[in-house]
């Protein structure tokens, strides 16, 4: 919302406050209406004055140009222009030699084919006033401009515009009047003023034109009023008004339309002007739209309507979407002379629904959905007709036509000393009443510690005690309030299992060389395809956003892998040649038949040796077993048993992928990325893992076993094993053989220490060598006992088909 300092002076006497725009901005910002910028419209302008064209002649050598002799009150200046719209006797803005334009341009002299021009005469555009006048011609000033007057002091050329961010609860601040009232509240010593055009006007004549009824069958229209202006001449608005509109961000159109915009900006009441003769019938009905009804709005779009929308119709024809946007055919044109001004009051809920559903954020809809003071519909109509009289030369003393439904009346609100004191740690009730009174909220009943206040109709946001407290709080400011902590600590504050798990994961992986990353939860639409996921894989059916910003951020991730791969890509693109180790933990989003969707917590990691793997200490490439160590660290430290079983994922290497099991439950995959996908990323040797950590949320307490006080005995065994058999299979067999021996000696540890294939080993086989540690918790084992057991184990392994070497 743009606020003009000059126009503000029409509504409030701020001069005695000795206030600068900057000081006002600070006060507004702290009290809830953040001032985002302050603009001095004259900018760097210096030395630009009004000047009268005393003489005008054609350039002797080039007819394109005219030579003007300008009277600035202090002398005559010669100036050349290519503009055509001026004549002798006109007053214009003149920027003489050495003067500066608003954009900082300094003017000098220029030779036009032998004639010197000193400075220039200005168009509106050159004054920084866009849309105020034809940019190709000079801005011709009204007759009251005196030569020598500074431009910034004329017609509001030099104004100060505050851009204020108005919160959605304060529809009342979307006008100069509302801002003036707010300032009055913030500065109790100021006084409100009423501009001339807002004074009561005698309007008692019957309409000169025939007009039927205004019917309001839809209660969402609180009030609907029409004012009549006859004999209007459509032309430009007064220069000051045009400049005001431009400064406040509206394009001047013509005097009749400008009046409606001007009054809306000043008072906050949206108005609509139409040509009476273009109305389909001499009657107005405001009704709910029919489900499926269509209407063509002013912007040329065909709108499908519902019963929640309100239509303004005439003779059964829709002429406007009430409170939102007009129709195409009833506008003011240059030949209009009978103008009807509409001033209405609509339900914010209804307008809000329509404007949100159709995505129309017109000035009217913006205001109505934030609530427009219903009391304004009368006074704004009177003000608008007054200005139509002044700007369009129309006759306006006709009695307005009105129809009303129930108008929302403000309800009293009670303020208690107790609540005020609890909330703000301050309880001066008399002072509080004064503050509220400044905002127009008057005390209607005084019961001492409990007082009743009546908000004005312009403040529908004040409905409960807390609202009153906020008015007091924002007036006083919050910075001086005392600080303290709650008296009593509630017990059992708990960071919670999932936060602890998240902390555990990062505390495990970061020291293991991983960098923690955070990537977007949405992925490109085609990610399942890039991952080669089967169409029936749940991960291939992501939830998709209906209104995405782009197709690249459209599908909710079902796996963390694409985020890590794009992190790898970005890292490499940015010139990183060293190893990449990254991990992410976060939610994935899966469709679920029963609950529409689930959000399991995943952890995924990626390691890549880097583009430059040269090292003084030789090749230290990482592989499947490095990432396996990381996954094991994560899972075993939570107290779960981890198993890796040869597995398959479409996006993983067909021979180097494992399913990960925690206590026998599959929780994810680990291994090398599919080489074809590596190639697409232009890298080789990417290892990844991804696990669903939901099942690891509970951290198991470790069960400790004291070391035996009796010595262990170590024996090695070397087996010839077919390649189809895994290390895990062999270890299982060895353990089983020890168990089957019936001995009470325990196999305390079993460790693979050598793998050999090649010379001396048949094709399709490898030799695996294990170290076994036998121990008893009851006695020191004799060599015979150990030998006997170990030989037994060797024999049973042979019996299972192993070749023991």
């Amino acid at each position, binding site marked *: 919302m743009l606020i003009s300092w000059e126009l503000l002076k029409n509504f409030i006497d701020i001069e005695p406050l000795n206030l600068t725009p900057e000081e006002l901005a600070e006060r507004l910002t*702290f009290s809830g209406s*953040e001032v985002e910028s302050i603009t001095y419209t004259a900018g760097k302008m210096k030395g630009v004055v009004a000047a009268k064209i005393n003489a005008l002649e054609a350039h002797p050598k080039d007819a394109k140009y005219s030579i003007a002799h300008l009277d600035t009150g202090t002398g005559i200046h010669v100036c050349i222009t290519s503009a055509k719209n001026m004549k002798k006797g006109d007053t214009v803005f003149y920027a003489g030699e050495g003067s500066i334009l608003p954009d900082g341009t300094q003017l000098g002299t220029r030779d036009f084919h032998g004639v010197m021009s000193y400075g220039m005469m200005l168009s509106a555009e050159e004054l920084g006033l866009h849309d105020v006048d034809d940019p190709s011609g000079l801005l011709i000033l009204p007759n009251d401009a005196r030569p020598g007057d500074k431009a910034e002091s004329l017609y509001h050329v030099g104004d100060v515009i505050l851009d204020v961010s108005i*919160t*959605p609860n*304060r529809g009342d601040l979307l006008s100069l009047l509302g801002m003036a009232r707010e300032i009055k509240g913030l500065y109790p010593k100021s006084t409100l003023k009423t501009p001339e055009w807002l004074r009561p006007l005698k309007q008692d004549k019957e309409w000169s034109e025939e007009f039927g009824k205004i019917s309001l069958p839809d209660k969402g229209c609180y009030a609907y009023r029409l004012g009549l202006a006859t004999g209007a001449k459509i032309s430009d608005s007064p220069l000051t008004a045009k400049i005001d509109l431009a400064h406040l961000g509206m394009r001047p159109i013509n005097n009749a339309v400008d009046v409606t915009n001007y009054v809306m900006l000043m008072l906050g009441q949206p108005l609509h002007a139409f040509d009476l003769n273009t109305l389909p019938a001499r009657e107005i009905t405001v009704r709910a739209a029919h489900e499926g009804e269509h209407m063509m709005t002013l912007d040329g779009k065909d709108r499908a309507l519902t019963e929640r929308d309100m239509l303004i119709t005439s003779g059964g024809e829709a002429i406007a979407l009430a409170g939102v946007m007009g129709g195409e055919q009833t506008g003011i044109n240059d030949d209009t002379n009978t103008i009807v001004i509409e001033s209405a009051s609509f339900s914010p*809920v*209804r307008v*809000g*629904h329509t404007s949100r559903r159709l995505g129309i954020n017109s000035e009217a809809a913006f205001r109505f*959905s934030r609530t427009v003071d219903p009391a304004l519909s009368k006074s704004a109509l009177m003000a608008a007709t007054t200005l139509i009289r002044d700007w369009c030369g129309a006759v306006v003393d006709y009695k307005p036509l009105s129809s009303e439904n129930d108008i929302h009346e403000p309800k009293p609100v009670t303020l208690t000393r107790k609540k005020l004191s*609890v*909330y*703000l*740690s301050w309880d001066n009730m008399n002072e509080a009443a004064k503050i509220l009174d400044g905002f127009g909220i008057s005390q209607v009943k005084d019961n001492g510690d409990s007082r009743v206040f009546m908000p004005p109709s312009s403040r529908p946001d004040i409905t409960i005690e*807390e609202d009153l*407290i906020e008015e007091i*709080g*924002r007036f006083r*400011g*919050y*910075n001086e*309030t*005392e*600080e*303290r*902590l*709650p008296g009593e600590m*509630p017990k059992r*504050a*708990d*960071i*919670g299992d999932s*936060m602890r798990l998240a902390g555990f994961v*990062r505390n495990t992986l*970061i020291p*293991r*060389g991983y*960098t*923690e*990353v*955070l*990537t*977007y*939860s*949405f992925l490109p639409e085609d990610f399942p395809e890039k991952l080669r996921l089967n169409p029936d894989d749940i991960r291939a059916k992501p*939830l*998709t*956003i*209906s*209104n995405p910003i782009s197709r690249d951020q459209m599908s909710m991730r079902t796996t963390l892998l694409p*985020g890590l791969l*794009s*992190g790898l890509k*970005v*890292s490499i693109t*940015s010139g*990183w040649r060293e190893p990449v180790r*990254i991990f992410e933990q976060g*939610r994935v989003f899966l469709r679920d038949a029963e609950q529409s969707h689930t959000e399991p917590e995943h952890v995924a990691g990626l390691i890549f040796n880097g583009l430059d793997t040269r*090292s003084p200490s030789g090749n230290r490439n990482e592989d499947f077993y490095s990432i396996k160590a990381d996954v094991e660290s994560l899972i075993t430290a939570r107290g779960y048993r981890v198993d890796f079983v040869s597995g398959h994922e479409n996006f993983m290497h067909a021979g180097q992928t494992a399913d990960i099991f925690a206590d026998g439950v599959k929780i994810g995959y680990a291994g090398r990325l599919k080489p074809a996908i590596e190639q697409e990323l232009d890298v080789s040797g990417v290892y990844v893992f991804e696990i669903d950590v939901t099942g690891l949320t509970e951290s198991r307490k470790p069960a400790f076993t004291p070391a035996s006080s009796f010595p262990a005995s170590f024996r090695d065994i070397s087996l010839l094993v077919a390649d189809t058999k895994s290390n895990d299979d062999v270890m299982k067999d060895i353990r089983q053989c020890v168990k089957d021996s019936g001995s009470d000696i325990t196999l305390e540890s079993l460790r693979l220490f050598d793998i050999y294939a090649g010379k001396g080993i048949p094709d399709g086989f490898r030799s695996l060598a294990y170290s076994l540690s036998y121990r008893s918790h009851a006695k020191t084992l004799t060599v015979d006992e150990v030998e006997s057991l170990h030989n037994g184990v060797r024999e049973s392994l042979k019996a299972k088909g192993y070749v023991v070497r």
Partner: protein
Amino acid sequence: MTEENITVNAVRDSFRESLAGASTLQELDEIRVKFTGKKGSLTQLLRSLGKLPPELRKSTGQEVNTLRDEIEHELDHAGRKIRDAENEKQEISQRIDVTLPAHGRTSGAFHPVLQTMHEIADIMQGLGYSVASGPEIEEDYYNFECLNVPPWHPARDMQDTFYFADGTLLRTHTSPVQIRSMLKYGAPLRIVCPGKVYRRDNDTTHSPMFNQMEGLLVDKNVSFSVMKGTMSEMLNAFFGKSLRYRFRASYFPFTEPSMELDIECVECSGHDEHCRVCHGTGWLEVVGMGMVHPNVIRAGKIDPDEYNGFAFGIGLDRMAMLKYGIGDLRLLFDGNVSYFMSGFGGAEKC
């Protein structure tokens, strides 16, 4: 002084003299034999004990034993010295360049936003807050409706929202967890909820996904003063210093009164007109907050006549950017390891 004492002292003196002259392990062995061997001086001394008067036997015997301990200890010590000196020559020949790169992996790096999240959650736990959570794909009811934002409400314009076909949405703030927690735990209550939130915004200062931490305290007679004290504790603990801060009145549909908290620019403290972090204002907006609106308390099935409270939403990305001097929000979400490692000397600084 007795004759025997003189003898013990004489043996000691003689030992010291020999030891001082020894420089090889072999010489030390010879000394050991000479004094403690079967025919050594100490053995002879012990043998002579019998000749002493009975009252002296015990004390002299003790003195001899003490001397034996002394001699053995000093021989061991001298032996270690000689051996160490010999080894050291060899060690020096095995000298390595300790400035060569470390083997294996060195530590990775934390993500500043997640670090911030964990730090603040820890601080808040110290103030009695538990961590609560809620879904990121949320129902309109929890995200808007019960937070006093019905479908027609213009406050919806404040938060441009991503929707799914079934009407669910990506939560635009962590505030829905307020309601979910009140329904689950009742009053009194202190919770924080860190997490991702989403808005349909994408430019240099807005990311479609960002991180927030919601805080909620519900109790009897809760004052703005307590919210102020809580904010001050949290900020000081997080930034590790006492920063200036200020409150501005503001508006959120689910709090009344509402305010925003600005903290002193951590980059320039308001001294740099062209500061890239605060753009010269000297202040940074980091927390939105207010006293919980009675309608919201009611939606949480708690009686607003009995309980009230305050709620706040901290911008975690903002806090992280401030603490770690990060200028561009978008750097946080692209997974670029070179960026995150750069803060830890991971990349060679030339």
